[in-house]
C-alpha cells in the first residue's frame, strides 16, 4: 500500500463519541483541557457534544452533565486553530438545536442518519448550508447496506447540500475490503468538491486498518479519537493513526509526540474503565450492533441478571439500529421471561 504524500484531515471524536464511555458526564474543565491540548497538537477538527449529539440528553441515552450549549460555549472560544464540529441525529435533534450550535460558533455540522434513511436529513442539511457550515452527511451503520445502496443514500444528502459524505462504521463490523468497496464507490461517483470520510470503531481491532483502506480508496477525512476514547471498544486511536501515517508518509499535520501525550496524560485518566476490546465490545463488532449500546447492555445485565453479550446478540438478530437504546431493557426483560 503506497499512500506517500496523501493529505488527510483527522477529526477527533473523543469529546463526543467518548461521552458514551463516561455516560455523558465530562466536566466542562476536562472538555476544555482536552480540546486545548488537541488544538495544540495540531488536530484540525474536534467534535464536541453529548454522545448522541445535539438534543441527545435524555432518559433513553443518558442526561448530559452539562447542556450542549454549555460545552460548546466553553470550548469554542479557546481554540487557536482547531475548528469545532457538532453531531445531529434527525428524529432527536432539530433545526432549533442546530441554530443554538451555530450561535455557539461551530464550523462543521454532521447530520447523521441510519444508512438507509437519508431522506430524514433534508431539513437539517438545507438549514446547515444556509448557515454556510461545512456540512457532512453521516451515514451510520454502513455495514447494514451494500455499497450501491449506500451511494444512493449519499446522493440524497449531496442533493440537499452536503459537501462531505461519511461511511460510518458505527458497529465496528466492517473489514478492510468492505471499507474499500464503500469508500471507493462513493469516491468514484462524486465530483472532487465532495469530500469522502470514514468513521471507524475498534471492536474488531480494525480501526487503523480500515482507515488506511479508506484513505487508499479516496477518503480525505478520517475520524478517530485520542486514546480511542469512544463507544464500544472505542474509535480509531488517533495517536496510533498519526504514528502510522508518519511511517507511511501520509500528511496529517498532527504532532505525534503531543498527541501521544494527550492520550496518556489527559484522555486515559478520564476513562472510568479502560476503553478496550472485552467480550461485550467484541460482540458489538462480531454481531454488527451499534457501539453505544455497550454500557446500556452492561447496565441491563446488572439490573436484570441477563448477560450483556446475550442481549447484544439478540439486538443484532433483530436488526436494531442506532438510537434504539430503549430496546436494550426490553430485550433483557424478554430473555428473562423466556428463561423463567
Amino acid at each position, binding site marked *: 500500500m503506497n499512500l506517500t504524500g496523501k493529505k488527510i484531515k483527522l477529526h477527533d471524536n473523543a469529546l463526543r463519541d467518548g461521552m458514551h464511555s463516561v455516560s455523558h458526564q465530562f466536566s466542562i474543565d476536562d472538555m476544555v483541557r482536552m480540546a486545548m491540548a488537541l488544538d495544540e497538537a495540531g488536530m484540525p477538527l474536534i467534535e464536541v457534544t453529548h454522545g448522541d449529539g445535539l438534543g441527545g440528553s*435524555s*432518559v*433513553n441515552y443518558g442526561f448530559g452533565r452539562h447542556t450542549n450549549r454549555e460545552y460548546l460555549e466553553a470550548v469554542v472560544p479557546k481554540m487557536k486553530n482547531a475548528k469545532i464540529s457538532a453531531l445531529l441525529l*434527525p*428524529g*432527536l435533534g*432539530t*433545526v*432549533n438545536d442546530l441554530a443554538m450550535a451555530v450561535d455557539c460558533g461551530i464550523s462543521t455540522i454532521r447530520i447523521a442518519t*441510519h444508512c*438507509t*434513511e437519508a*431522506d*430524514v436529513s*433534508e*431539513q*437539517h442539511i438545507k438549514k446547515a448550508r444556509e448557515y454556510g457550515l461545512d456540512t457532512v452527511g453521516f451515514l451510520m451503520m454502513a455495514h*447494514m447496506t451494500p455499497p450501491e445502496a449506500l451511494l444512493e443514500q449519499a446522493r440524497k444528502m449531496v442533493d440537499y447540500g452536503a459537501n462531505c459524505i461519511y461511511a460510518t462504521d458505527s458497529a465496528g463490523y466492517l473489514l478492510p475490503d468492505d471499507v474499500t468497496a464503500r469508500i471507493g464507490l462513493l469516491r468514484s461517483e462524486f465530483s472532487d468538491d465532495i469530500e469522502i470520510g470514514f468513521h471507524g470503531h475498534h471492536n474488531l481491532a480494525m480501526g487503523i486498518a480500515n482507515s488506511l483502506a479508506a484513505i487508499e480508496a479516496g477518503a480525505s477525512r478520517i475520524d478517530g479519537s485520542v486514546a480511542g476514547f469512544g463507544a464500544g471498544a472505542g474509535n480509531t486511536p488517533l495517536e496510533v493513526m498519526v504514528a502510522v501515517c508518519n511511517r507511511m508518509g501520509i500528511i496529517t499535520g498532527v504532532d505525534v509526540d503531543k498527541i501521544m501525550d494527550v492520550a496518556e496524560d489527559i484522555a486515559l485518566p478520564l476513562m472510568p474503565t479502560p476503553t478496550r476490546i472485552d467480550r461485550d465490545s467484541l460482540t458489538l463488532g462480531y454481531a454488527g450492533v451499534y457501539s453505544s449500546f455497550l454500557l446500556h447492555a452492561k447496565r441491563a445485565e446488572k*439490573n436484570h441478571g441477563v448477560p450483556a453479550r446475550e442481549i447484544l446478540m439478540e439486538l443484532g438478530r*433483530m*436488526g*436494531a*439500529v442506532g*438510537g*434504539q437504546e*430503549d*430496546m436494550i*431493557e*426490553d430485550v433483557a*426483560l*424478554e430473555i428473562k421471561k423466556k428463561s423463567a
Partner: protein
Amino acid sequence: MAINCAMIGSGNIGTDLMAKLLRSANLNPVWMVGIDEDSDGLLKAREAGLKTTHEGVDGLIPHIEEDNIQIAFDATSAYVHGENNRKLQEKGVLVIDLTPAAIGPFCVPPVNLKEHVGAQEMNVNMVTCGGQATIPMVAAVSRVQAVEYGEIVATVASKSAGPGTRKNIDEFTQTTARAVEEIGGATKGKAIIILNPAEPPLMMRDTVHCLTKTTPDQEAITKSVHDMLAEVNKYVPGYRLKNGPIFDGNRVSIFLEVEGLGDYLPKYAGNLDIMTAAATRTAEMFAEEIENGTLKLKKLA
C-alpha cells in the same frame, strides 16, 4: 344519517383512514384528494367508489356545497396544512388535522376527547402517530402523581414512514413533545422518532419514560396503566403492553407494541392505525354533535 367527509392526502395515512371511514356508522367518505393521478391511494379510492381529484384541495373546494362535505381530514404535511385549513374553513368545513402542523387544539381520544365536546372547534390536531401511541400512557402516570419529565421513543418500520413524515421529522418531534406536556401532563416533554428498515418490517414499538416528582406509587401506576390500555384497546385492538411498567428510582418505563389492522399497509404499521383510528373516533364524536345540533359549523372568512 351519516356526515359526508373528504380526505386530503392520498398517502399511507389518507388511504388507511379511508378504510376506517368506510366502516364507520356515522361518517361517509365521499372525496379523496391527492396530487398524483396515478397514486395508489387515489386508485384505491376510485375502486371504493369515491370521487377523486389529483389537483389538491383546490380540486375539492368547488364541490363542497353540492356534496355537503362537513368534515375534512388533512393527511398531507405540516407545510401545506395551514393553506388547506384556510380554504376548507372558508367553506365551513370542520378540519381534523393529521399532520404535525398543530394549529388547532390537540386531541388524544382516551385522554381528552370529552373536552372537545361542545367546544365549537373548527380544527383539531391529532398530534402524531407516536403521540397517539404514548401520550395516553404519560397521562396514565400523571393522573396518579406529578410527572416532572416525560419522554417517548417511537420506532416505526421504514416502509410505514412516507415522504411527508420524513420531510416533517422536526415537526414530529416538536409537536409530540409539546403534546406530552399539554395532554400527557408532564412538566417537560421530549420525543424521539426512529425509523428501522429491518426486513420483515418490525411492528411499531413505543417506549414511555416518566420521571415522577416523588417516589412512584407502583401499585397505583400499574393499575392506571392497565386501565388506560383497556381504553385504547376499545379503538386500537392491537395496542399492547409488552413490558413494564418498570420502576427504577423515580423512573417509570413502559414498553408498548402497536399492531395494526392491516387495512392499507400490513399489520406491522400500527403507527398508521393508531393515528387513523384516533382521527375516526374524534370525527365520529363531532358527527354526533353535528347530527344532534350541538355543533353548528360556521364559515370562517
